[in-house]
Structures are given as C-alpha cells and as structure tokens.
C-alpha cells in the first residue's frame, strides 16, 4: 500500500467516524440509510472470506486454505471464541500442507 492510499483511507474513515458527532449532533439518520449501513459488513465480510480463501492472482483455486477455512467455519458455527476460529484455520491449513504429496 502506498502512503497516499493509507492517508486517504485514514481521512475517509475519520470523516465517517466524525460525521455523526460533529455534523448531525443528536439528529437520527434516515431509517433507510441505517438499514443499508447495518447490512454492509455482512456482505463485505462474506466477500473477503470467499476471495481470500479461493482467490489467487485473479483465479479461483481449491487448496489447503479451503480446508483450514472450512474447519474454522465449523468452529465459528459452534460459537468458538474469535481466536480459536483463527487458530483452527491456521492449524488445519498448516497440517494439510505438511501432508506428504501435498
């Protein structure tokens, strides 16, 4: 990442954080906009899971990461703590890579 990108992201994020406290005061956002903003993280998180698991230089790939993230999905579904989910993904991915012939 370039410094320009880092500073642009910092400025944009700060503007979003400060918009409510500074500009709107106690007035509420339009209900429709609140609904969209509340749903955005789910869409973006899901996309990042998919792209970081199956994407590799603009191609789709099925490799050890898929096994690790699949195991992590089971852990997350069983309400495992945050760090356990991440640990399971790393451990299973490492294990699959360590298998002979992999």
């Amino acid at each position, binding site marked *: *990442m370039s*410094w*320009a*990108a*880092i*500073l642009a*992201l*910092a400025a*944009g*994020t*700060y503007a*979003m*954080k*400060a*918009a*409510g*406290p*500074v500009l*709107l005061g*106690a*007035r509420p*956002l339009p209900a429709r906009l609140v*609904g969209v*903003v*509340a*749903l*955005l*993280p*789910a*869409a*973006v*998180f*899901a*996309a*990042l899971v*998919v*792209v*970081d*698991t199956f994407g590799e*230089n*603009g*191609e*789709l790939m099925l490799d050890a*990461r898929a096994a*690790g*993230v699949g195991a*992590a999905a089971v852990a*997350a579904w069983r*309400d495992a703590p*945050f*760090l356990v*989910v*991440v640990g399971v*993904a*790393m*451990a299973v*991915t*490492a294990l699959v*890579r*360590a298998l002979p012939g992999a």
Partner: protein
Amino acid sequence: MRQAIAMAVAVGAVGIAFGALAADGGLSLAKALALSGLVYGGSAQLAALGVAVEGGSGGASVAAGLLLSARNVAFGVALAALLPRRLGRRLAASQLVIDQSAAAALAQPRRDRAWRAFWLTGLWVLALWLAGTAAGWALTGAIDIETYGIDAAIPALFLALLAPRMRNPAEAATALAGGAIALALVPFTAPGIPILAASAGVVAGLVVARRRTRA
C-alpha cells in the same frame, strides 16, 4: 475498566495477526503503525490490506476499507448524544469510534458512565492494537507464512466477524448474496472489484428484512 482491558487484550491478539500480514504484504513498520493508529479500524485495515496484497489498485484498496468503515457513521450517530458538547472534544473522540468503544458506551445506561466507558475502551484498545501491530510485524521475519497457515488467518478473521451476524436472517441473506457475487467475479475482474461489487448483496438483505416486517 476491567471490561475495557479484556476487550483490548483480545483486539491486541488480532493486532499481532494484522502486523504479521502487513509485513508479509511488504508494508514497512511505519506504514503498518500508520494504518493502526490513523485509520484505527481493524476490519477496514484488513480489507484494504487484503485488496492491496491481492494486487488491487490503491483506489480499490481504499474503497474496500471505506466500505467497512461505513458502519462508523451509524455508530457516530448513535453516540452523538453521549459525547461531550464541546466541538474540540467531539473531534478528538471521533477517532476513538470503533466497534468495541461504541458497544461499551451504548451498553451504559447513564450519560457520564457511557462517556467514561467510551474513552477508556477506545484508548486501551488503541494502545494494545498498536502494540500488537508492532509485535506481529517484528515476528514475521522469524516465521514462514505458508508453513504455519498464516495466510488462512485473514479469511478466518473475517469468518469470525461474520459468524454472529449469520443469526440475523437479513444479514445471512446479505452474506450469501455478497459471497456469491464475489466468487462469480474473481476470474473476470481486477482484484478488489469482487469485494466492492459484493455490497450489492445488501439488496437481498433488504428484501428479507422487508418480508419479515410484513409477516
């Protein structure tokens, strides 16, 4: 105070992962710390880094990060009534708006306690987030990313952030639609575009939410 520190420790551990991934992605320590201190939004930083590491342009990387920062608008509006009235303090407090500080403040019934919970959580999490980033960055040279499966940590981080949202039917529909859009676009578009396009998945969530309020 105890709750603020507990949250900060958990976030600090994620900071180690962020620092390691930043170093692996070729970022200098100064850049990694600038992201953690100036942007100060874990998921936004990870998203921007993820796009950049996949070879996305600076613009795509910033846009992906900003999509995840967008929820801070809602937090800011919810917090507006709880923050001090002076503009200078509001400007300073705004930088501390993150998932954890917003949740801690909004959980308090009284205004003075909410403000205290907000800045205690915001500052403790910031301190350990920066410390974790630096530690993770420093550790990276010593460990091999692929051997230890560290490259699987980023999707797992997002999976862990996504999991509690899957209980809400509108958010689950949004996630499924967003994931499908991203998967379909990976082979055909520049890196970063699938993630931005996935935001259209919100439409599926809005449809589900509307049906449920009618039913």
